[in-house]
């Protein structure tokens, strides 16, 4: 539903399908040079969410009919409550956790696999690795992170998980096939015989704005661009993110001044003007934050093409 008032590109929350949790705030054991919210061991602008806070939101989410839950940071597994948070979440619905894979412990994965076996729902791990070689990955994510993340993938596979390897496209789009092929071979060599891969576009915010460049004034969505556009492709049309400062519009913009919409899901059920540069990336690529099992957006067309 689009309102055209004041010529701002306004997007309403259509339905709250995905509820995100900024469960580790902006704290991470790594300091990737392309991180769009500049997470690091020393970035405390957002803090951890406690088990009680997450549980309160899960209970609140029931009447909104949330379909799936996502957990991000920072590095979620720095949060000491993370395993019990995921166990509890699987009582409510499917869960996905976005991790750098470098701090996983076998005893956590045993516990989580037992939780999955006892639940109706899937638990997905998305492990971030930015390229099929240390030469591509390590300059961005830090020394030896390639090797450590691959060890994390091996652990996950050994514990019966099928992690989705998520990579930010730090290469040219035309090289996608070659890079993905190289990735599949590499993962096969590490015991992962049916690798699942997801490519993300770069988001020119935070540290990435310094590494390459930020968005220009021309990288903006206008109200006219929303005419006839299927807004269900936009994350903010079907998601909100719980942070320790309140409920924000989407996981990408939490650092922006206008991102916190309220303290409850009800308060965060309001429209948002997608005037940020990153909104243009979301507009262009669509569905960038959700898993492949959600599929791509679709609205029936009535005219022949």
């Amino acid at each position: 539903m689009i309102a055209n008032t004041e010529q701002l590109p306004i997007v309403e929350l259509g339905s709250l399908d995905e509820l995100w949790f900024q469960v580790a705030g902006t704290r991470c054991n790594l300091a990737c040079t392309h991180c769009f919210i500049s997470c690091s061991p020393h970035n405390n602008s957002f803090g951890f969410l406690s088990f009680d806070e997450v549980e309160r939101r899960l209970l609140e989410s029931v009447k909104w009919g949330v379909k799936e839950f996502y957990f991000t940071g920072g590095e979620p597994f720095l949060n000491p409550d993370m395993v019990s948070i995921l166990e509890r979440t699987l009582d409510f619905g499917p869960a996905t956790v976005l991790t750098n894979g470098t701090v996983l412990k076998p005893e956590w994965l045993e516990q989580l696999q037992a939780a999955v076996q006892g639940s109706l729902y899937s638990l997905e791990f998305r492990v971030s690795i930015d390229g099929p070689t240390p030469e591509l990955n390590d300059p961005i994510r830090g020394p030896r992170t390639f090797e450590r993340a691959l060890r994390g993938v091996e652990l996950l596979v050994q514990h019966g998980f099928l992690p989705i390897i998520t990579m930010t496209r730090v290469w040219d789009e035309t090289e996608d096939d070659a890079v993905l092929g190289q990735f599949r071979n590499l993962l096969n060599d590490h015991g992962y015989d049916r690798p699942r891969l997801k490519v993300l576009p770069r988001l020119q915010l935070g540290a990435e704005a310094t590494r390459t460049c930020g968005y220009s004034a021309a990288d903006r969505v206008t109200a006219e661009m929303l005419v006839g556009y299927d807004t269900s492709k936009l994350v903010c049309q079907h998601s909100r993110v719980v942070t320790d400062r309140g409920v924000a519009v989407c996981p990408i913009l939490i650092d922006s001044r206008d991102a916190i919409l309220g303290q409850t899901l009800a308060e965060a059920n309001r429209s948002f003007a997608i005037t940020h540069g990153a909104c243009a990336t979301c507009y262009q690529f669509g569905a960038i934050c959700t898993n492949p099992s959600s599929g791509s957006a679709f609205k029936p067309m009535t005219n022949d093409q």
Partner: protein
Amino acid sequence: MQLAFFGGIYNNHIALKTAIADAQQRGAERMFCLGDLGAFGPHPDRTCEIIREHKIEVVQGNYDHSIGHGLNDCQCGYTDPRDNHFAQLSYDYTLANTSDEHRAWLRTLPTEIRFEVDGFRFLLCHGSPRRTNEFLWESTTSTPFLNKLCDDFACDVILGTHTGLHWQRTWDAFPTCSNLTGTSEACPTITRSYINIGVLGRPENDGTTNVWYSMVRTGNDAGAGRSPLPWKVEFIPLAYDHNQLAREMRAEHLPDEFIETILTGWWTTCLEVLPSKERRRGQW
């Protein structure tokens, strides 16, 4: 009342014929197809002819919408390049081999069918009531989400297909009387169900060659008085001449990957869209 439901046919006219005979033999009084007549298999016109000849009531799937309107792709909703590559091969074949007359008919199909049984409101759709190509996988669809669909679309039982894997969930909804009478007293429990009826088009990625359809029985046929629900669903594994289907697919030069699925029961394409629980049950 005994109702038969056929999911995605994917041009598998042999399984469709077998299913119709099987359902009739079991006493089906009405037969429904929840869309996606084309894809994957051979000779799309044969499926359309059988469906129309038997006056099966059809919901339009994303494939039927695309073929009917001559769109560029099937709108299946895949995100992986390899999945999209194979989806395009079967789409181009189906579009090229569906007659104009059947395409015109596909355009006229409704996106939902509704009826009531003993005061319970049934809604038939392809993917979900809100989006024709929405994937409702068992392991990534929360019960509160299904409950909200029932609220939003004013129904108690939703039947769909689209994912290729059958499953069902029944739950108790607890509305407050404020919804009904303006007070906030607790109301009696309402039982609701979501039923994914499976597909006739290809096996279920379990290493067996049979395909699936569903029978729903209501009223006395559901064993009224013995069952707490006024409906009962039975998922039916259907053996058919899959070797003959494979021969026809070969003759039509359809991809070896598709034929392998028909002969082995394991999916070889469209795998990346599976959630991890469903993916782990398969071989690839």
